[in-house]
């Protein structure tokens, strides 16, 4: 119970022990991933055989370190490209949606705002297969009627971006709309009264106010895209992003180079997250 009520020492120790055990449970998997990135062995397993940086920089002795592993490095680049595309699309469309939800008034608005949340409850695998099927129907149609070969509708990066965007934009919309809701509309009125044009008001008053939400939405979109697996798995073509690449290698029993790339991811996402929290 709460501290203001009498608690026995035993119950206090039990609670503390439980919470401690919980955090061990949370962090042990991450810790072993990090530790075995530096183990001097060909397989990420005990015992400890000494410290090495082979799995980051190695390129000899039959060991391919992260920076020498061309397919792995390429998949990181692919992930960054995809995540950038998803982020730009999500923030742009999310901003438009936020204005639509907060400023416009039209018939069927509540239905639309509910539909905007729907992608969040559709399992990612199903988003993937439905977009795959629909895109292939469109491609077939274009081929049959116009004799057009629309390659971008076949499994590949364009579909991966669209698939991830289809639900990440819901989150971006929620984030941006929540801030826009708290906006004091009289500020805009004041700017209008002072003779500012509509564009000038948007650019100098409204958007600067929205900036924290825009940055937040962008960071969340980027992270979610980078980590997406389910939707991507169904839509990926011949150039896999990092999560798909790692999955393939994990099934085969990979070398500690995966630990190395994981450690890199941990450091990068912690840096993004911490810098975001400091801003708030």
């Amino acid at each position, binding site marked *: *119970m*709460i*501290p*203001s009520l009498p608690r026995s020492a035993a119950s206090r120790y039990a*609670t503390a022990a*439980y*919470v401690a055990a*919980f*955090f061990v449970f949370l962090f*042990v*998997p*991450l*810790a*072993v*991933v990090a530790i*075995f990135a530096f183990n001097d062995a060909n*397989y*990420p*397993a*005990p*015992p400890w055989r000494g410290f090495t940086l082979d799995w980051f920089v190695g390129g000899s002795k039959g060991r391919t370190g992260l920076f020498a592993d061309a397919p792995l490095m390429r998949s990181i680049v692919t992930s960054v490209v995809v995540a950038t595309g998803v982020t730009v699309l999500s923030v742009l*469309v999310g901003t438009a*949606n936020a*204005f*639509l939800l907060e*400023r*416009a008034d*039209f018939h069927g608005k509540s239905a*639309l705002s*509910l*539909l*905007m949340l729907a992608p*969040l409850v559709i*399992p990612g*695998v*199903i*988003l993937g*297969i*439905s977009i795959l*099927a*629909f895109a292939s129907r469109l491609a077939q149609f274009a081929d049959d009627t116009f004799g057009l070969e629309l390659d971008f509708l076949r499994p590949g990066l364009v579909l991966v971006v*669209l*698939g991830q*965007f*289809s639900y990440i*934009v819901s989150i971006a919309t929620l984030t941006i709309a929540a801030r826009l809701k708290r906006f004091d509309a009289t500020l805009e009125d004041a700017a209008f009264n002072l003779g500012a044009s509509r564009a000038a008001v948007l650019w100098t008053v409204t958007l600067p106010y929205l900036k924290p939400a825009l940055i937040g939405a962008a960071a969340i979109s980027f992270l979610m895209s980078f*980590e997406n*697996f*389910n939707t991507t*798995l169904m839509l990926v073509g011949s150039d896999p992003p990092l*999560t798909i690449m790692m*999955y393939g290698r*994990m099934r085969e029993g990979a070398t500690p180079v*995966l*630990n190395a790339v994981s450690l890199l*991811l*941990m450091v990068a*996402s*912690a840096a993004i*997250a911490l810098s975001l929290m400091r801003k708030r």
Partner: protein
Amino acid sequence: MFLLLAPAILWLGGLIVLPHVELAVLSLRSRVAPRVYEWSLNQYATFIDEPLYWHTFVRTAAMSIFATLATLLIAFPVAWYIAKIAKGRAKSTLFILCLIPFWVSETVRTLGWMILLRESGVLPRLLVDLGITAAPVELLYHDATILVGLVYTSMLFMVVPLVSALESLDDSLIEAAYDLGGNGWSILRQIIIPHAAPGIVAGSIVVFMLTLGNYLTPTLLGGKNSLWFTEQIYTQFITRFNWEQGAAFGFLLLILSTAIVWLGLKLSGQRFGDVMRRS
């Protein structure tokens, strides 16, 4: 106005509504000759006739419910500690510590569990060193392993709504109940749980959905024995190229997922939009 409506229509129409219509059409047709199709319920009949398919479906649903309950039970005391017992700096530190593992991708977390649990891994080795087992045991590829992985990966989505629900509970209510002779159990049942219900439902719905639709954790931690329904969808769609069957499976999963979400909202009398915004 129309300029604002256009992106939303393109997004929802082109990427959500029409693809799902396409999926429904696919699931309801069958091929009678090359490029000739007719309406049929064949795919759904196959699902019922083939025990492997509906066993996998029921199994996935049951394990997801179990994983959700386990996540709730494990997360609740921690959320309580963070919301009510920890103070000041310790409180915010603990809360952030809960979030950290989830900034890292699920792939990385699953890799961690594989290194810990496989036969040549850390935990079997430890068991041998401690003299508990004579030889290393394989801890991967069991149902329990899948559950551990699913609970782990869902934890954040339970802790966060629970903490925010419990934080809004006024301590004086608990003190009053205590002064009136309530004990730990009756206070939990009559004061705390009713107050935290929105958080409990929100967390449970999200965890259930994510678990049901998970692919990575069951396949990697469960191996060939995982029998997860999303795996069947993948097999039909990508490996066997039987899109009609895969679409039917997809729809069944979607229906189950939606039904449980709806049931959860009905039981707790909450609105969908509120739950989504909270989580």
